[in-house]
């Protein structure tokens, strides 16, 4: 009953026979536990520090810029007079994310269903790590690939003429960044959705086969719905990644704030505004400096909401099958 960590029956040490008591109070053990707890608490401190570092300058920002102006659609902090309508950069982020997910979701889910329902164990064992290598490629490299290959060799030849203003001759566009991010995100969706579908018990599949269902039907009508919360979680996490992606957008989508969802124009996303502005020589405390933090707050809140949804969904699907 003296085992450390036994919370059911905590007996006061004084009641134990002398020979069963610990020979010393073991302050070292307590100190170690304290140190380890401190390591865990550091993560909470990190989050607090993020929130604090965002809030201060953001409040300073709103002392100068009204909330109604902030939720406008004109973003031109360098002009005179400057205009801070954050919706222009939010639209830039949504533009890139929307077109990215349009490609990434079907491809990622297709790959996931293939991995979990069709591939043999050996194929799966080689394909999955290969896909995960793709997820580990630095985003600078993907951004460079998007400008030097995806844009001139894929988008411009395949884009239908003057549709939406045409794609020829443009050095930057949202769609190039979208496809680059899709490349980065497909492995995330594929890998996490595959995990979710592989966790569906065999019995469900075998029951369906016994009733005469084909493999495609088992995959789409039994396994897919059973793993849905895990799949949705992987997609939400992928969206959160796309929203937070910086380097691919900076390199491939240009830096022209534009309130549009047109994929073949240059845009500026929230992340790329932060990256471009904060690297330039802006004086600390200026309104442009504070605007970086205001945009950062919006970005943080958006990704936070998606992360919470994703974490909740994962937990729910875990409860069902474990």
């Amino acid at each position, binding site marked *: 009953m003296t085992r450390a960590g036994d919370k059911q029956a905590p007996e006061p040490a004084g009641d134990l026979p002398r020979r069963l008591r610990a020979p010393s109070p073991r302050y070292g053990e307590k100190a170690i536990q304290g140190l380890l707890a401190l390591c865990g608490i550091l993560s909470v401190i990190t989050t607090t520090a993020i929130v604090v570092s965002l809030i201060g300058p953001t409040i300073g920002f709103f002392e100068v810029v009204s909330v109604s102006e902030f939720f406008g659609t004109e973003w031109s902090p360098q002009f005179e007079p400057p205009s801070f309508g954050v919706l222009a950069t939010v639209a830039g982020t949504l533009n890139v994310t929307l077109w990215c997910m349009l490609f990434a979701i079907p491809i990622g889910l297709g790959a996931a269903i293939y991995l979990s329902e069709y591939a043999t164990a050996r194929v799966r064992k080689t394909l999955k790590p290969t*896909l995960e290598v793709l997820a580990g490629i630095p985003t600078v490299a993907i951004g460079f690939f998007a400008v030097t290959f995806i844009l001139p060799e894929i988008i411009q030849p395949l884009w239908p003429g003057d549709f939406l203003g045409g794609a020829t001759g443009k050095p930057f566009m949202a769609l190039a960044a979208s496809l680059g991010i899709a490349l980065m995100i497909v492995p995330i969706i594929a890998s996490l959705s595959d995990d979710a579908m592989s966790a569906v018990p065999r019995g469900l599949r075998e029951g369906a086969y016994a009733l005469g269902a084909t493999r495609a039907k088992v995959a*789409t009508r039994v396994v897919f719905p059973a793993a849905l919360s895990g799949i949705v979680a992987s997609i939400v996490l992928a969206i959160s990644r796309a929203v937070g992606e910086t380097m691919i957008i900076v390199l491939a989508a240009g830096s022209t704030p534009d309130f549009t969802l047109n994929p073949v124009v240059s845009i500026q996303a929230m992340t790329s505004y932060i990256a471009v502005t904060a690297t330039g020589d802006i004086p600390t405390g200026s309104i442009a400096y504070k605007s970086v933090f205001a945009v950062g707050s919006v970005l943080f809140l958006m990704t936070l909401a998606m992360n919470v949804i994703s974490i909740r969904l994962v937990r729910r699907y875990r409860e069902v099958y474990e």
Partner: protein
Amino acid sequence: MTMGSERATPRNRLAVAGARATTQAMLRDQPRGDVIRNTLFAALLLLAILIALAGLVALLIQAFAQGASALSIDLFTNGPSSIRPESAGFRPAIIGSLELIAGVILFVVPIGIGAALYLEEYADKTRWWNRLIEVNIQNLAAVPSIIYGILGLSFIVRGPLDLGFVLAAGSLTLALLVLPMVIIAAREAIRAVPDSIRQGSLALGATKWQTIRRQVLPASIPGIVTGVILAVSRALGEAAPLLLVGAAAFVTFDPEPFSGGYTALPVQIYNYATRSQEEFQALAAAGIIVMLVVLLAMNSFAIWLRNRYEQRW
């Protein structure tokens, strides 16, 4: 007894044969629509995974095609140059990246393992503060890297720590960025050690910490090392947060941890990639090749390690 003889009557035999034929026909000949649909579906799935792999292959080929001309030993010995791209290189950037990574490892290994040990071995999961730490780490793992840049800018470069725009600030920022990854991986490795090992050790009179240090940790080292390598390779390729904490594009000297400017490989690549001359584009591609070779080697090693030492208890 009578049932046996009944089954043998010609009439019954006929009925059984008919039923069997019907069943077999149903099982053998799927409706043609189903066959086509199934094949088509499987082909589409295969296509999806092939597109993803083709993207990976195209990225590698493109980097080599464009960077091959700039690949030379100069990349490792020369500093950057804005006027003479033919002799420009990545020396300060590579040294900067190595120093950044060293700092990340120094910070992340003890704290990551410590936090994981606390959560797995000590924390009472029914307490709200432990659940808070857990959810908080999951969320931190998905916070955009540029937000960590903002954190580094206002807490490490300026604010409470006030290090200035130095390499140590960049290193600490990257460390905070990848810390959740290390914690999550280490927790999984620790969780995979079966309880019977702990109970055996405790039953022999070891204290809790002795059990952890001599039994749990050695058994989970491969998983932890894998997690650390993957985290370090993420830190190595990360450019966005460094842009905010002072990694300058143009550093011609070998960077030092606590004074002067610094740069890193991905930041230098980014800088070359934004210049339009062809020579700089080739340089960027060559830098990407160097970075990818290092990263692929690290990642493959991590995956090999995981598969090689994965213990099934």
